[in-house]
């Protein structure tokens, strides 16, 4: 499948002449493509006269950037202090076992990607997971089953 680069070109153009653009630009690219494709990195390097290695340096430094395609839904499992004390690690292991993927991986059907995150800032509702932009507090194994089921059903319909 060839990548439609026209959108990336437009985004790159919209940032020309501004300062401190690299991170917001990469964020916009990722919003558009779901990840930052290699081809786009080359375009950015050319447009702003940067080495691609510098862009990769930034891409790999920040946890929110991906250089490979992601699943349709991203499950973030909070591993903050409060969640740790309330059993967050067990949740991560449980989801990992259930979906048969490790942290950072995507399921074969492309439906879910799994990520451990440092803290989602909802410590009052620990343990917490986040699917895309939805928060789910007070999770246990049963609730995880229900949540995953809901997304699967949405997909089937």
């Amino acid at each position, binding site marked *: 499948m060839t990548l439609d680069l026209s959108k990336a070109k437009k985004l790159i153009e919209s940032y020309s002449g501004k300062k401190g653009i690299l991170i917001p630009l990469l964020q916009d690219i990722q919003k558009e493509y779901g990840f930052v494709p290699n081809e786009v990195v080359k375009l950015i390097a050319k447009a702003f006269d940067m080495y691609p290695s510098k862009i990769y340096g930034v891409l790999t430094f920040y946890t929110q950037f991906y250089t490979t395609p992601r699943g349709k839904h991203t499950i973030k499992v909070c591993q903050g*202090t409060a969640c740790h004390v309330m059993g967050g690690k067990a949740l991560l292991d449980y989801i990992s076992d259930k979906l048969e993927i490790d942290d950072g991986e995507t399921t074969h059907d492309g439906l879910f990607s799994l990520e451990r995150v440092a803290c989602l800032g909802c410590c009052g509702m620990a343990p917490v997971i986040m699917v895309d932009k939805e928060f789910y507090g007070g999770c246990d194994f049963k609730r995880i089953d229900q949540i995953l089921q809901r997304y699967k059903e949405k997909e089937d319909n």
Partner: protein
Amino acid sequence: MTGRIQVCAGTSGVSAGADDVATSFKKQLKEQDLDSKFTVVETGDRGLFRDVLVDIIFDDGTKTIYERVTEKDVQKIVDSHLKQGEPVKKLLVGKDYEQFFKDQERIVLQNCGEIDPKNIDEYLERDGYTASKKALKMKPEEIVEVMKGSGLRGRGGAGFPTGLKWQFCQKAKSDQKYLICNADEGDPGAFMDRSILEGDPHAVIEGMIIGAYTIGAKEGYVYCRAEYPLALKILRHAIKQAEEKGYLGNNIFDSDFSFHLHVKEGAGAFVCGEETALMASIEGKRGMPHPRPPYPANEGLWGKPTNINNVETFANVRHIILKGANWFSDIGYKKSKGTKVFALAGKVKNTGLVEVPMGMSIKDLIFGPGGGMKQKKIGFKAVQLGGPSGGCLPELLIETPIDYESINETGAIMGSGGMVVMDQRSCMVDIAKFFLGFTVAESCGKCVPCRIGLKRMHEVLEQLTDGQGTMEHLNFLKEMSQTVIDTALCGLGNTAPNPVLTTIKYFEDEYLAHIKEKSCPAHVCTPLVDFVVDESKCIRCGVCYNVCPADAIEWKKKETARINQEKCIKCKSCITECPVMAIS
């Protein structure tokens, strides 16, 4: 009857279904032709986590507060309360609510959960933007003096006097200066900045206007974590509204002063909370710190003088300008003035955001607003303060007053105000390993002590929790901690060993149990747990039987539970849920 319905819909509220509750109210009111009589407002979170909180405020001032409201309860509230004046008793807030708020002194949080953060007029009705108007008529030097006199110190962790910081930057000579609000709240266990931005964004913007005018910055940034989508949305909206009113942009309040405020979304790196790393990130680089000096006040963002303060610090500013330095410095204790917001979480009954005057003891906070331990039978063990840079304090020290110096003396730090309560089921070696695992993952890798020293310490802690620890390991941890503290480049590395040192200092017994007896007293470290039920402790309640996801527990009413080792997947669900710690 006419009035207002407030639904607390910050991130906590929304996760519990606040959006659905608000929608349902609107729908019900419309269907029953009441929508001209009652307005539905979505506020930020008030601080107490009680699923969805709803206020019914009639125009005569009577206010009723409901907790744990779901979509299904809405019709009942509309029919019974709004139409007939009969409150729905079973949903009314109880003693916990009262206790949670009783001893608080809410300055920074006063609008959170009380106003519509998306409506600037509601902020204006509460003295909004009067402080910035007043400040713009003062000389910058005067404002510096007021800030210095107030004794306000940075709420992000280090506690540096805000007035002094502003003075450095105000005195720096440059054609361009910058003001930054640090909203990269990365400490696991802290969520006050998010709630302030979600509940009262204009208070932060107003503090920034005053700060920018004082130091002479025409441009400012709010650097906010991307993990906070709602806070970002509300903040962007608030900035737009402030611009429309002429409070941001060119010639603010028809003065000569112009200030443009931008939002920068973080990309997920804890170290970016460190100010020099944060600036590198705004510049579009890898967020790595650099040695100081030069300090940001002289050479900061793009080499220009820059002042950085935390969200909570900025939110205090308007109150100080309006009410004066003395008013602020009268609140608090010794060298720590004003209030501090704490994010109370963990094994405590009431979790949420608590704002108390400095000087209150940790114990009064946990057992006052916090309502004490979640499960009384499993007693208090430790309280963790200050996140990965902080430390764990034992029961012996919970009378410690909350002020920067007293907390530093214990080996912990105030930090941004994360307070995680732990009971006897938390293993202190595991907690030390947890925090170190966090800092190892978040270390930017620039300096060797942090990159390699912390990694080696983490490996040793892993050996300890695996039951392979030796006494040499314990000595190694102490020595390496000191080396990293002394030699790391930035605050992340300098403070990362604190959780290890404080747990060794106050919970050495637990380390020794792991090393000598190969046992984990809290039954947390899986390799050291046998997964057997202690008959003498078991109360035959069957909780373990119900939570086991592997059907590995055999139990009948009035009988002791038994764990089938072949089926057991060692997930520890039973250990977590057992009310009497009978499984070891």
